[in-house]
């Protein structure tokens, strides 16, 4: 199908585009992009035209972390259900961590996930391979084979690596294979039995706390090993301002590292847990307002270059227990864009920089060709109405996981169309 999107404000930070342009799509790729009524657009015969007047056209979002729960946890969600939800949130590429069951430590599991995503047809799914076999932090995984099977990097998900020797070897081996190591920095012993940020609120609620030092001690260790091994590394889901400053300094000193933050860590704080709200039970935990402001500042300074959903859908029962007995995580695909857009309204980031944190910058971290509207690129496109107000409800949420602290929140900015490889995979019937 040949498609033309007209009258939309096109924002493509990778190509420094921010103007009203027409986008012509043929054979699943961007065929031409140019001023409205320009020759490239005029000469293009389209089967269908989308009028994006007063809307914004951006590259499809690239989400650095989304649990799809398949294989192994289909009672929570499936690749089909979650990629469909992703499409409705304007996300066209999802990176899934290796803690499926079975774990992504063999090429077969990586292929299975990619094939199921292709069969579902809503979004590209890029798996991360296991850093260690079975994520047990004992033996390094067959990284070369995982890379050949399409893994964009290696990661130990949220399983701790207590043995620094194992981590060092894994980093050295990953460097040999030219793979990025994705790290979830948390010290197992300092985390202890904690289930929320250790601070004023944990003291009041009597809930076991996770100290700030659990994150910064892990970042400090990891930075030393990154420096020694020369591996390219990415810090996933920073939650403290201090860890972000350490990453900033290391980047300044030239270490090949990057970092991301989840959208909810840019909004919520420990205070949101104060009524034992299990929807705010998250790992890493929601921290102080100072941390939240520090993470926002790091985003503005370019230390943190990606915002991800950290999507973790759960069945209802997983959150129906006393706080510390619930499973951590938020169903977050459909709030990634509108939450990020709030940063623009709050003058934290420009619109273009916000889009960059959701598109080509995470794509660059994954080392994949995505997140741009360059001629010849895959026509993965998100069109949204920046001024449309809508309310998040369990009924409208497409993800199988209804676990979100943002239920009944009003958001501004609604995805109207999502294109994957030139095919419309979501269209809002508002």
């Amino acid at each position, binding site marked *: 199908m040949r498609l033309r999107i007209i009258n939309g404000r096109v924002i493509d930070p990778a190509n420094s585009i921010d103007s009203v342009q027409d986008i012509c799509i043929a054979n699943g790729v961007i065929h031409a992009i140019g001023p409205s009524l320009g020759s490239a657009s005029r000469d293009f015969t389209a089967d269908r035209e989308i009028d994006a007047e007063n809307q914004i056209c951006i590259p499809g979002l690239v989400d650095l972390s989304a649990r799809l729960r398949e294989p192994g946890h289909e009672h929570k969600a499936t690749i089909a259900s979650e990629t469909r939800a992703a499409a409705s949130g304007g996300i066209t590429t999802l990176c899934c961590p290796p803690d499926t069951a079975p774990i992504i430590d063999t090429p077969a599991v990586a292929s299975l996930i990619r094939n199921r995503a292709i069969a579902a047809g809503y979004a590209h799914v890029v798996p991360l391979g296991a850093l260690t076999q079975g994520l047990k932090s004992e033996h390094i995984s067959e990284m070369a084979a995982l890379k050949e099977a399409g893994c964009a990097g290696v990661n130990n998900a949220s399983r701790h690596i207590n043995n620094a020797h194992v981590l060092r070897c894994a980093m050295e081996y990953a460097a040999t294979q030219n793979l990025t190591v994705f790290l979830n920095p948390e010290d197992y012993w300092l985390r202890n039995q904690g289930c929320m940020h*250790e*601070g*004023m609120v*944990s*003291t*009041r*609620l*009597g*809930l*076991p*706390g996770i*100290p700030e030092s659990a994150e910064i001690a892990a970042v400090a260790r990891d930075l030393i090993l990154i420096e020694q091994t020369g591996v390219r590394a990415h810090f996933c889901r920073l939650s403290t301002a201090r860890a972000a400053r350490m990453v900033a300094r290391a980047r300044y000193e030239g270490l090949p590292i990057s970092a991301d933050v989840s959208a909810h860590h840019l909004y919520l704080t420990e205070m949101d847990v*104060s*009524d*034992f709200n299990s929807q705010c039970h998250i790992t890493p935990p929601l921290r102080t307002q100072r941390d939240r402001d520090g993470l926002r500042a790091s985003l503005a300074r370019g230390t943190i270059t990606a915002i991800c959903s950290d999507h973790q859908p759960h069945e209802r*029962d997983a959150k*129906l*227990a*006393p*706080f*510390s*007995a619930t499973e951590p995580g938020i169903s977050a695909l459909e709030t990634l864009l509108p939450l990020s857009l709030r940063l623009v309204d709050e003058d934290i980031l420009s619109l273009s920089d916000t889009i960059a944190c959701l598109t080509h910058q995470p794509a660059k971290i994954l080392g994949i060709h995505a997140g741009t509207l360059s001629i010849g690129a895959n026509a993965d496109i998100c069109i949204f109405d920046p001024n449309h107000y809508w309310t998040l409800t369990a009924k409208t949420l497409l993800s199988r996981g209804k676990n979100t602290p943002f239920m009944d929140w009003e958001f501004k900015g609604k995805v109207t169309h999502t294109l994957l490889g030139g095919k419309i995979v979501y269209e809002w019937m508002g």
Partner: protein
Amino acid sequence: MTYYNIQFDKNGCLKHFLTIEGLKRQLLIDILDTAESFSGVTTQSIKKVPLLRGKTVVNLFFEPSTRTRTTFELAAKRLSADVLNINVTASATSKGETLLDTLHNLQAMHCDMFVVRHDRGGAAHFIAQHVAPHISILNAGDGCHAHPTQAMLDMFTIRRHKKEFSQLTVAIVGDILHSRVARSQIHALTTLGVNEVRVIGPETLIPCEAETLGVHVYHDLREGLRDVDVVIMLRLQHERMKGALLPSEHEYFRLYGLTEEKLAYAKPDAIVMHPGPINRGVEIDSSIADGPRSVILEQVTHGIAVRMAIMSMVLSAQTSSRSNPEGEIN
């Protein structure tokens, strides 16, 4: 937020008793006054009043307890309620039943009040949020979060001996970090307007940012006890010795165990309290536990009157909200 409102019904009456935090001073005083009127009942030869006749109270204990459960049972029986004791650790959860399943099953038996103890913080709030609207929840201890009836019986005991809260300096000694009793006591004492609350213990047993609770932190027992009116000793759980928090019972007793010599720093008429069960020779010397300034056994006695007061107040709110369906504020 629900956290503060969930304890009250639409008429503003106390419906659940989950935590002291957020309750008004006058309500705490009402509880103490009501308990005072019940304390006569508990010493009469016929120890029953018919206030809760026909009501069913379920003691739902997910964690073992002797004293708290027994005094709740006695309190309910003296108010003429029917009492059911359920020890859940030994039954349902070991068969894989969830907390909500257990709750729904008990709810189906048409009970009026659940007295809940659970090892997870927030369990009583969780149950109050999910229980049928006609059932009241009394928190008998949830994790390290709250034990509000214990705190109220402690306030009752303090008032019996000290009258005016605003003049008092109270020291709470020991494992504040893991103590739901200490948290509830701190909220009760600060709400009742005491002059100063001190917490005393090694840094490993003091929760982080403890000052935000409105207390002063001391690490030296002698210094912390100086001129206090009330000394509350906390039980030190034996399992705390297994980890890295403390070196040994011996050193703990040497630094934080209450002895005659250390108690001499407090005011001459200072009283010594302990929520029990006491570890003699770990946190308190026997001569003090059994001595003239100890009010430890009085606390147990007062527990019955205070729990009667809270049960009757909560269940009278149930009755008034039914007879007042329009929700007018009384």
